[in-house]
């Protein structure tokens, strides 16, 4: 499908809009700030005024966080978030991209720069004066959550690790959060997959391009995601090969967003990767449904507040983590009933958007605090960092709890 045809499909979906306002009721951003006019006004309505090769008509679309809840809620199938992402790209092309957006959307650059000097870099992150300076110079909010560099890279561990040969291969896409900040999460994913009889392959890989895409830098995002797709597709050898990831927003990028928003529907590698990619909890729940998941769980005495991130909901697979956590004896899990934590990847880092992000997340933070839970579980790393900072509780990936329950080492 050519780029033009796909754009027409996204754009064409606006004709299905019946102005019912359901998306307006669901939008976490426009419900807390007048700076974003809301998904209906900015999406299917404003789109009629957007003409190719003419100046962008937008200003408020940059305040859309790209969470995608509008598209999920629409009963008519209008691709509201996708239309708005494309409008944001046009706006950025015409009005320029701040230096900050060119930096914070490159987790690979940041990770490679920070990892060898992790101690110093982490001191910088923790230093109030430097953060204030960063806010002044780079417009990254001084209070925004910033993960600490692990000082080591997951891929280095994976290269040395030998996955027992079982013939049941799975390709592991770990993403940048695991690579630079939470390598132990990756080790746990590998351990859980191996415990369930998989032989885990970790091919050379890099960023999926989502931060670039959500900041409207489409050309760079395309290059990055296509490079990743080539690297992953090379390892898909037969009909049964699947790719599994624990970074739920990055797997959504591979499954759907890159193809739709970046108009890459035609790319054969990306198409293959898109069809073969699983979220880790999605995969484990499906194994359980078939009676193939090991359930030798030990009791875990912990109280958990579970939040399903927006990007996880964008997979349209429900909340598999909840079903899995319910298998663990002793674990007390409360499902949060809030839409969004506010961070939306890099949105809540930006100085001009930080307050909005905190207002969006206020419902969730309050629910976490009143739930009595000691620990938060959430599938997306940037959401975990945001929730942990805002609620002063540890926030872990659901696989962390499964790993504990399996009693696995490492």
């Amino acid at each position, binding site marked *: 499908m050519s780029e033009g045809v796909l754009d027409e499909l996204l754009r064409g979906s606006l004709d299905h809009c019946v102005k*019912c306002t359901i998306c307006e*009721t669901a939008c976490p951003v426009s419900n807390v700030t007048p700076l974003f006019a809301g998904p209906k006004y900015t999406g299917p309505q404003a789109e009629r005024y957007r003409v190719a090769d003419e100046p962008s008509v937008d200003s408020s679309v940059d305040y859309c966080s790209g969470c995608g809840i509008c598209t999920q*809620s629409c*009963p008519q199938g209008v691709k509201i978030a996708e239309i708005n992402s494309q409008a944001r790209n046009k706006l950025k092309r015409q009005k320029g991209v701040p230096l900050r957006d060119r930096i914070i959307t490159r987790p690979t650059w940041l990770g490679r720069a920070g990892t060898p000097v992790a101690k110093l870099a982490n001191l910088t992150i923790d230093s109030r004066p430097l953060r204030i300076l960063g806010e002044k110079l780079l417009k990254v909010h001084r209070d925004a959550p910033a993960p600490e560099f692990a000082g080591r890279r997951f891929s280095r561990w994976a290269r040395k690790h030998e996955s027992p040969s079982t013939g049941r291969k799975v390709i592991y896409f770990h993403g940048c959060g695991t690579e630079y900040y939470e390598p132990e999460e990756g080790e746990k994913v590998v351990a859980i997959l191996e415990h369930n009889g998989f032989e885990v392959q970790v091919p050379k890989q890099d960023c999926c391009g989502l931060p670039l895409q959500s900041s409207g830098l489409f050309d760079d995002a395309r290059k990055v995601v296509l490079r990743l797709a080539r690297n992953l597709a090379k390892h898909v050898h037969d009909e049964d090969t699947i790719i599994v990831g624990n970074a739920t927003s990055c797997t959504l990028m591979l499954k759907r967003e890159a193809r739709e928003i970046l108009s890459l529907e035609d790319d054969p590698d990306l198409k293959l990767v898109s069809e*073969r*990619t699983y979220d880790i909890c999605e995969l484990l729940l*499906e194994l359980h449904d078939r009676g193939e998941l090991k359930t030798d769980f030990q009791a875990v005495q912990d109280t958990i507040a579970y939040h399903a991130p927006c990007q996880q909901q964008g997979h349209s697979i429900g909340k598999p983590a909840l079903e899995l956590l319910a298998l663990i004896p002793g674990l007390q899990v409360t499902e949060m009933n809030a839409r969004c934590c506010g961070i939306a990847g890099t949105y809540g880092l930006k100085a001009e958007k930080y307050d909005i992000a905190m207002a969006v997340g206020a419902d969730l933070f309050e629910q976490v605090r009143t739930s009595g839970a000691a620990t938060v579980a959430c599938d997306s790393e940037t959401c975990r960092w945001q929730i942990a900072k805002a609620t002063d509780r540890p926030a872990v990936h659901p696989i962390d709890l499964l790993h504990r329950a399996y009693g696995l080492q490492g």
Partner: protein
Amino acid sequence: MSPRAAALHFDTVVIGAGTAGLTAATRLAEGGARVCVLAKGIGSTHLAPGTVDVLGYAPDRVEEPARALSELVAARPDHPYALMGVESVAPALQWFAGRIADGPQPGYRYVGDLERNHLLPTAVGVLRPSALVPETMAEGDMRTREPVCIVGTRSLRDFHASLCAANLETAGIAARAIEVELELDRADVNSLGLARRFDDPEFRAAFAAQLAPHLHGDERVGLPAVLGVRDPHGAWADLQRRLGRGIFEIGTLPPSVPGMRAFEALRTALRSAGGRLILGAEVIGAEREGGRISAVRAHAAGHDVRYHARWFVLATGGFASGAIALGSDWITRETVLGLPLRGAPAPGDPRFVGEYLAEQPMARVGVAVDGALRAEGAENVLVAGASLPGAVPWQEGSGEGIALSSGHRAAEVVLAEGAGVRAAV
């Protein structure tokens, strides 16, 4: 392991997240079934006014719905109320009122029954008969004749107090209108945005202080239905106390705040009972085994997912939601599972008549079902809500009544068959 085989198993899969689908799913989950709701998006709750209109016109205005229902099913054995059995209506209403009363909004409840219809004003001041209504609307019952003052604000552009009052006057009710200026952070606000403000006691206090001097004697006050999302009962009771008189909400154009409250109550009940709701999961196909549906295929990111179940409840709506469509080939189809329809005009017969508000030949089209709401040609599919044939809800004032009662009835049928057993893998 292959994405092509991606599949999950449930006892019952409900398709559609409107009133009918949420009711069926919640009742099933409460009955112990493993339930998953698959929906393209959010359904009718956010659009309808939030009242449960069981039967408003048959064809004259109905005062006693219980009696009128008996007459209706005797005269029209093909009507949804006849198919599900008129005795299934009262328990469904009672169940729904219970879910709202136990719901997340403290003190918020529905009042009314099948003995008498309320007569509530719409946003344009037309009187609408309704059996079960939010308590916050009940004071607007125009069967009593106290004068009313309709209060609007220019910030809410979809509610015109003077139009509402003028039409009530035409109907013989002493009515007048007031517009108040509200301090809001944006020029254009929808009913939900305003309702969030009414959750704030300070905002209510300022509003009441501004309004109080303009009110006369014993008149009651009608407001657009924006009195709170989190604590509507608290907001309503607080305003009644501050203004020292009866206050009632009037349904607005979408988004419907009372509808959202009902959605939230049902979703909370569904979640508490262990049921699942997946939005953005449009059902795009079905797999058959003889006369049964064994699985439906739903859209998901990257690869579709198959949902196996012993039972399926189709609650996708009618023409308005696209669940039933008339093609350019003049063939009417059920678009989700491809089930046979009933009530479509025969080839060559007129499908539409010239007068818009007249009885349209296409109006009663729906999925062909037997008495237990079972779809013809798919014995494990039950049909609920606007997908059912035989009704003209917008003329009868029966949409929510049919949705709620048939959703509830469908769940009872499944539970009676022993839905606790999981689908065969």
